[in-house]
């Protein structure tokens, strides 16, 4: 246990140092995640003209929450993993007595810590520009939101890391991610909150993991109706499913690994 804590602490501090090495890049990454802010403009305008079930201020708050969820759950492990497999860099990781996934987990977590100050700055700036949207959720809501966002990050990571396993068999695993991203964009609630979707689409979406990645935590934060218990249970189930699939593919993939270029 002491060893695990030490590993966690060391990984977190070293990867944090790595992430803040290039500050300008970090700011650009935060800004590149500002698609929700643009969509917010579109939807608040649209909501002023016709009724979508949400008021313009509710739309503004929802997309601000989407922005925050994206900042907390963004995952890029598939590109890193694919490169490691193709360049044979995975070899070094495999030679260490620790599962290589921890390097990725900690680089993601540390990046989050490095990114948050910039994200908060953007949110403050937004409230200055749009004061009617200011809202203060209660402590319980905030706690639930971070729990849901944390779980959404875990699920997002597990899904992408599972897709990444395909890199053992083909050189272009990341193209799978591009394909997956289409569904993610549409069904997760990134483009529009799930409540404005037609009933059938909404029902279908709830059978997929996508709405739990953005719509669920964002709705919790801004107080849109969600089934809390069912939502958390479904997320846990998806996590367990992808975890099992991931480990199975990992074991099979290692037999396939040839340590290319190394």
């Amino acid at each position, binding site marked *: 246990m002491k*060893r695990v804590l*030490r*590993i966690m*602490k*060391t*990984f977190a*501090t*070293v990867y944090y*140092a*790595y992430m803040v*090495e*290039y500050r300008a890049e970090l700011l650009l990454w935060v800004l590149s995640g500002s698609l929700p802010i643009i969509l917010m403009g579109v939807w608040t305008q649209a909501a002023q003209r016709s009724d979508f079930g949400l008021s313009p201020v509710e739309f503004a708050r929802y997309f601000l929450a989407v922005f925050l969820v994206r900042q907390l759950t963004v995952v890029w492990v598939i590109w890193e993993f694919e490169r490691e497999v193709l*360049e*044979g*860099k995975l*070899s*070094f990781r*495999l*030679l*260490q*007595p*620790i599962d290589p996934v921890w390097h990725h987990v900690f680089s993601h977590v540390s990046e989050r810590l490095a990114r948050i100050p910039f994200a908060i700055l953007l949110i403050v700036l937004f409230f200055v520009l749009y004061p009617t949207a200011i809202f203060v959720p209660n402590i319980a809501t905030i706690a639930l939101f971070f729990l849901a966002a944390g779980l959404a990050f875990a699920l997002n990571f597990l899904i992408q890391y599972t897709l990444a396993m395909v890199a053992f068999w083909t050189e272009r695993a990341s193209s799978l991610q591009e394909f997956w991203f289409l569904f993610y964009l549409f069904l997760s609630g990134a483009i529009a909150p799930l409540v404005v979707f037609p009933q059938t689409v909404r029902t279908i979406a709830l059978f997929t993991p996508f709405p739990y990645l953005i719509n669920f935590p964002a709705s919790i934060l801004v107080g849109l109706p969600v089934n809390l218990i069912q939502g958390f249970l479904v997320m846990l189930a998806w996590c367990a499913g992808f975890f099992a699939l991931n480990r199975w593919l990992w074991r099979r993939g*290692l*037999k396939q*690994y*040839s*340590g290319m*270029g*190394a």
Partner: protein
Amino acid sequence: MSTIVVDHLSKIYPVAVKEAGFKGTLTHFFKRTYRQVKAVQDVSFQIESGEVVGFLGANGAGKTTALKMLTGLIHPTSGRVEVAGHIPFQRRSTFLSKVTLVMGQKQQLIWDLPALDSFKINGAVYGISDRALNHRVGELSEMLSLQGKLTQPVRKLSLGERMKAELLAALLHEPNVLFLDEPTLGLDVNAQVAVREFLREYNQRYGATVLLTSHYMADITALCKRVLMIHQGQLIYDGSLDRLVDRFSPCREVKVEFARPYSAHELSVYGDLQDVEKQSARFLVQQEGLTGAIAKILADLQVVDLTVSDPPIEEVIGQLFQAGTVAG
């Protein structure tokens, strides 16, 4: 006790074949054909604890594939490998803590951070206490004369310094089996000598077993008494370096200086005449007839000076790689 046991080891890869040109690309896209590449075929050897063994072979001979199987990175198609009492591919942490792999063309250090940060990660992963870690970093950086270089980002180091830092990272957990794949690749002569000296010292100090591949014969001659030679995936020689030269280079070079000029015709009876220049000549003489030939030269001709030498080892090995048909 044998630290490394390799028994009838083979690895076969499927490799997609693509013909050049647009038609080739289309065929490659719709119907892919594969060729089975036998990277390593039925290789067996044992290495004792504390031995330093050179692993020779031309590019693509199968050295790196064999090293990858020995370190457990890839799964053998058939045969058995045992390193330090473990099956490498199971990657048990007791095994991983005992071995290391250094690849001259690959790096494990984090490029944008000082090497010291990467060492901290390794320290935590291998469960080395902070005190022991500082001690080892101090000791190894002194042996490698790297003091003062470890706090600057790895990308700012010279190639030689980076390679030394890579070695340091690879040896922090005091492994007793070292697999080194071209550890001196691209280094200048001074850095090569430094790395070589360090490896020798490390082997003596810790009694580590070392398996080393290198294209620089100087690395092999300086460090290894025993060599394994692999050609097209097969082990063609396993024995001492001296015997390799004796066995596969049956000729010696004899240079003679005379008191007066002789014609090429007069000299040709004494051996395989390579060149004649005024009052000197160079012969290649078969090992077994060497003493007879020298005695005859000394008796018949007016000799001022005579030297006998081995042809350079690079030439011998180069000829062997080209021939490739040597029986072990």
